[in-house]
């Protein structure tokens, strides 16, 4: 397998990261090297092996459905790039 410049552009869109042309060329080279290692996986027969998603076998714990958090909106929004009236400001998305 080998990634193409189109793959890099598509992945950049998926990752929401802008790359200029020089960066795309470098990524193409480096990611192909990385996939050179990753490809070793495909040679292994894993028929019937249950995927291990997590080191803990137990199901995730659930807590009681109770309100436990206090309102910390001000503290949490203090580090936001742009807020107004308790809302996060972003470019308009609905006309």
């Amino acid at each position: 397998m080998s990634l193409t410049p189109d793959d890099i552009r598509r992945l950049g869109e998926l990752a929401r990261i802008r790359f200029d042309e020089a960066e795309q060329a470098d990524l193409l080279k480096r990611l192909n090297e990385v996939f050179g290692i990753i490809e070793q996986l495909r040679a292994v027969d894993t028929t019937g092996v249950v995927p291990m998603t997590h080191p803990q076998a137990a199901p995730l714990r659930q807590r009681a459905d109770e309100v436990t958090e206090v309102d910390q909106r001000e503290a949490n929004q203090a580090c936001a790039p742009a807020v107004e009236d308790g809302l996060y400001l972003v470019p308009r998305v609905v006309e």
Partner: protein
Amino acid sequence: MKEVTSLDFSDLQRALAARELSAVEVADGYLEAAAASRLNAFLDIQPELTRRQAQAADAALAAAGRSSGHAAQGPVAMPLLGIPVAHKDIFVTRGWRSTAGSRMLGDYRSPFDAAVVERVAAAGAVCIGKLNCDEFAMGSASENPVYGPVRNPWDTERVAGGSSGGSAAAVAAGLVPFATGTDTGGSVRQPAAMCGVTGIKPTYGRVSRYGMIAFASSLDQGGVIARSAEECALLLQAMVGFDPRDSTSLQLPDEDFFAACAGHPLDPSLQGTRASAGATESAPLAGLRIGLPREFFGEGLAADVRQAVEDGIAALRALGAATVPVSLPRTDLAIPAYYVIAPAEASSNLSRFDGVRYGHRAAEYGDLRDMYMRTRAEGFGSEVKRRIMVGCYVLSHGYYDAYYVKAQQLRRLIADDFDRVFGEVDLIAGPVSPTTAWRIGEQTDDPVRNYLADIFTLPASLAGLPAMSVPCGFGAGRLPVGLQLIAPYLQEARLFAAAGALQRATRWHLERPPAERAPS
């Protein structure tokens, strides 16, 4: 009296308890050393915050002295009271910056403390500051693209290892007695090895991940770097315990890791599986069986590292342990499995950095999508971007089964190999890293070379097992080498017992790097 930073840990404890030194004096001594150091181990120091914590420790020490009537005996109940500590800048802190080593969080101020930070402070330790690391803990050299490389105190032209490189360098240079770290694929063990200090990554789920900036959530685990196993035990003790705010935090019976350092690795009271028959003072590890995986001693291992690791193993044998050749046949496959799983989880975790709620936002942008794309282009460094891209690829339609599910199946096989081997032996020993520390700049931005060097630490990470790096001597150029010990699930006490016995009998962990030279 000697400078506070040159006192060893127990002398420091004694002097604080006896009120010969105040916690403020100790903190000031360490703050001064940290400020004077040119290792670039620290990312943020706030002397006023540190002094405030030290003053509180002094008040508690004075109160403890009054109530016991024997100040000199000190408050044994709080062994960390007044002792300086520093946190890897992956744990969020109120007051100190919380950057994750990234431009993305360069100006971020956390509104809360990580669980680890909270607990260590509650134990009375005094925070000296935040420690440099690889960006978002992704890397093995701590050559931070924004804040500069951490320098190895044994040779300042070399890397400190990573990603907890600031933690390891600071402890090795005596800039702090112990430090927290995080380990996703070896990020506590490898820098500890390269800087000649002791480090432990506990079992996944031991240490709360609340407030530990997420990289790969099924692998990330908080850990400790200190000079000795005993000192690691004291700090880890303060960090572990159930935390309802982390859904993977384990509810476990209390254990005493410090006491474990003086015990036998298979003592049933330490939850060992077999009796410690035959252990004596001269053979404290008698009865312990240590597996040596042949895949850990192959041709990729540098000769000088092999020699030091074999010396370490010989020392364990001299203490009565038996060594047994074993096989972990999928060791090589840990690299591709890890470098699919970790980037996949990272690409998901790092999607939260969008310039909306916290962190960097590009100065100029058009629509919302353009804002995301410029913000993330500016905020992330090249290795982080590469991993996000790999993660997006292996999770994308048409590739998910071929890569992501496949890697998880490999992960199962790797964990099964450990289960099988731990049916025959009690611990596994081998190298931490195939080489000693490399030169700064030598393999920056060469992902493949860096990934291949993780081979010996990745398997235990994938299986979620506790593992430790213990100093075992030096390679060429007097660069430190670490011996890795891996234990079965939740058997940290066994690691502490083996490392404790080793460190009582040997002097490798007592070696110190040359003093930092004043800038020329």
